[in-house]
């Protein structure tokens, strides 16, 4: 029961973290100035974006939940169980971020999720 609760926490927080991060970075637009001053301005701007800060909190929860998961379950269970986040994120990228996800991207996401699951063995 605890294992599946941790899997749900890892997947849910990874999905939310990536989705909010992508949303905020799309709002910012393409970063073109990589000089220290330009990057400083970008970091200053991002530090005020509440969804990005929330995304980092979700990523931290996901990281620590995954560390806890591998202490109570085998890695060969933890990695495949959490690889499903690839498919969930692709679905939400289509619905929430309005990305054009064609057949090649669906096939790619599914193959990668299956590949990650096999890597754990």
């Amino acid at each position: 029961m605890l294992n599946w609760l941790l899997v749900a926490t890892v997947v849910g927080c990874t999905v939310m973290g990536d989705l909010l991060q992508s949303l905020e970075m799309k709002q910012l637009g393409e970063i073109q100035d990589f000089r220290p001053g330009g990057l400083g301005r970008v970091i200053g701007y991002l530090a005020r974006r509440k969804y990005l800060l929330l995304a980092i909190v979700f990523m931290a929860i996901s990281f620590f939940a995954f560390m806890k998961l591998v202490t109570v379950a085998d890695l060969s269970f933890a990695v495949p169980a959490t690889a499903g986040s690839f498919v969930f994120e692709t679905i939400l990228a289509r619905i929430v971020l309005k990305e054009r996800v064609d057949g090649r991207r669906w096939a790619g996401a599914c193959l990668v999720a299956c590949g990650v699951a096999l890597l754990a063995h």
Partner: protein
Amino acid sequence: MDAADRRIRLKTRLFAVIVVLSGAFGNFFLDWGLRKSNTQLSMSPVDYVVAIFDPWVTLGVALLIVWLLARMALLSWADLSYVLPVTAIGYVATALMGRFFLHEQVTPQRWAGTLLIVLGIGFVARTNPRTTPEREIALAGDRPC
């Protein structure tokens, strides 16, 4: 494909390589440092603070910060549904580093997994990295880049 598309594709590939390498080496050095120092991590935050002063762990954490920043930059112009599968090659890089540096066993299933990931990346890499128009920001003057 026009010049702007070529520029975006080149920039995307460069940042994808940075994300993959910094992530793989960051995790590797973190693991290496924790193994070498025999650090036992409990629920206490003190253990994490002590662990971070190991030079290998510090290097690992620094590389993972590079990973986070490079990934954020990549997401500023590329789709999430493109970035996720393309940077998944990091799983393969980690498996190969385990094989060559830590002399871990790579089973046939792992090689099959590697093949599936590479195939998946092959599908996604042929698509355009950006399928959505850049969004307008409410405060256009606030846009820093």
